[in-house]
């Protein structure tokens, strides 16, 4: 069965969608990704959709689901590389992708992820410090 590969880079899971996904494939990706987050304890997910020419309401919804589920599993999600025409179409469709953070490209996305993961740790350390007091 065909699948979208999920790569692990340190604490980040990297997903590059390079085919036009049919619905079942998108649902499978969603399942695989949540399972992988639990398995690896990843802190961030980066999804590259620069090859996608069509993002309709269904795929938009799946992306939203992934972001929400990741957050529940203590991981940040950043979607990168969205084509302008796709972005415009999404807006015209009335989908604002709530809860999904976006970045222009992979590099910026990684930076964003790193920063937010660091921030989480700082918050944790502060919490620990305050406990010691």
């Amino acid at each position, binding site marked *: 069965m065909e699948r979208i590969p999920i790569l692990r880079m340190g604490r980040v899971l990297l997903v590059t969608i390079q085919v*036009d*996904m*049919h*619905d*079942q*494939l998108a649902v499978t990706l969603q399942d695989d990704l949540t399972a992988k987050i639990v398995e690896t304890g990843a802190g961030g997910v980066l999804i590259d959709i620069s090859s996608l*020419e*069509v*993002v*309709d*309401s*269904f795929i938009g919804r799946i992306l939203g689901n992934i972001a929400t589920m990741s957050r529940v599993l203590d991981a940040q999600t950043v979607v990168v590389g969205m*084509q*302008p*025409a*796709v972005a*415009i*179409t999404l807006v*015209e*469709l*009335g989908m604002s992708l709530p809860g999904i953070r976006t970045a222009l490209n992979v590099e910026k996305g990684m930076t964003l992820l790193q920063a937010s993961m660091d921030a989480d740790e700082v918050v944790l350390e502060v919490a620990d410090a305050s406990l010691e007091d």
Partner: protein
Amino acid sequence: MSSSLFQSELRTGQDVVNTRQRGRHIAQSLGFDGQDQVRIATAISEVARLAATQANGHIEFLLEERPVPALLVRVRASAFNEGLVVGNTPETLRPGPALAPAQRLMDRVVLRREGDGWLLLEMAQRLPHLTPLPQALASLRDELERQRRSNAADELQKQNADLLRILDELQARKAEVDRLNRELEETNRGVVALYAELEEKAEALRRASDMKTRFISNVSHELRTPISSVLNLSRLLLDRIDGPLTTEQEKQVLFIRKSGEALQELIDDLLDLAKIESGRSEVLCTRFSVAELFGALRGMLRPLRVNEGVLLVFDEPVGLPELHTDERKVSQILRNLVSNALKFTTRGEVRVSAKPGPRDTVVFSVRDNGVGIAPEDQERIFEEFVQVEGPHQQGVKGTGLGLPLSRRLSELLGGSLLVESQPGQGSTFHAAVSRDYTQRPGAAGEEGGDPQELERDAPHTRTVLIIDDDEVARYLLQRLLSDASLQFREAATGFEGLRLAREVRPAAILLDLSLPGMDGFEVLEALRREPSTRDIPVIIHTSRSLTEQERGRLLAHAVGILSKSGLTRDVAFDLLQRALSGPGQTPGGGAAQT
């Protein structure tokens, strides 16, 4: 005016993906800019998904020229999609919430019903430029057609792969079937071997059973000769032929006779059983009515009552036809059943009745209200020498042969013998026999010939030759026939008998069949070959039970057959008188059976 560019079925998720890619390609070819291409593709994706989920949908791309040149996408979808439409009548029909994305992306979205349960959805996007050139359209159509074909080739390949897979499966299944077949064949061989073994066992059993029958038959014959001597001698004594007896002596001889009779009865039963089992029993059919039979039995069985409080009742048979079967055997069956019933009934009654049964049979029933038979014993009582243990057995004598013999006899007469019983409530035995023995099921049409009576006149000749190796038998015959003022000559062997016959030329010959060296058959043949002895009448005097064939052979050359068992003076004398009734008479033609 519109012209079709491309059309396709919508069945799977992959169809949806292909269609939106195709849509984007068409949009690009028609000069839409990148943004519009994405819009159109996205809108097609939304609508095609709806069409593919419920039932097989269909999509067609058209080029519309009026009112303005536009790309028209026509999708057929099931009307059962949730949220696809609002309103039921054509006037109120409008796109539902599921179509909202498409409405936002396309210039125009129109909906109408088509047939039962189907909706036709049309989306249009105005062309950015003027109508494309016909050549451009033609090349677009060609290209789309090529893509569709390559798709078809892919499809073919996939089907081929499927076929190969199915072939593999079939091969595997065939191998499995072959394996099962081999297993079955092995099992079959095993079964055949087992069957052969069973056959062997059955054959061995049959042989054992035959041997048993032969053994019983032979032993009974051996017993029969001495026991008839004992009986006949005691009869002679009781007839005071050799002088008077004291009261004490008479009592003793009576006891000897009584014991002898009991023994003879047992031997007769055994012989009957053996005869039936070996298939040598003869059925001598006569015509008689049930009323006659009951009349005879009533007289015969009254004295058998052991207990005074038991009534023996014969129901008057009503509406029964005349029977044509062996009266002696039917009577034997009933005697056995009634004497059994009387033995095991202390008070009450024993009732004998007859009524027509199924398949042209007559069913005789003997009912008692005696001790009854436990269900587990109801088949065992028909086995030879089986007597059911119990308090009622005390003081009751029996051989355990009566019931098995009766059952065999009933079967021989084309019927059966069954029992119904409740312990403590009494038993009823039902003996069925064919109304007409010659018409019984499975009858081969044979008929036991009724013995014909010989009609002869008074005798005048004097010398009688007795050929018998048994001294007692010779003596007995002489004593029995003594006051016929006959002269007797004795011969212990066949050779001696033949010599005497030639020398003395006796008026009659009494011939035993079991002789040492030359047996009775050979002696008879020799007598008939010799002209000087050819016309001497011969009476066969034997303890053997003869087959129909043997009887036929003997009666061709002998006046009659005298059985050693149950020999009485009257019968013997009568037969001898007939034999002596005149020289030169034709031998054969009948037999007197005692």
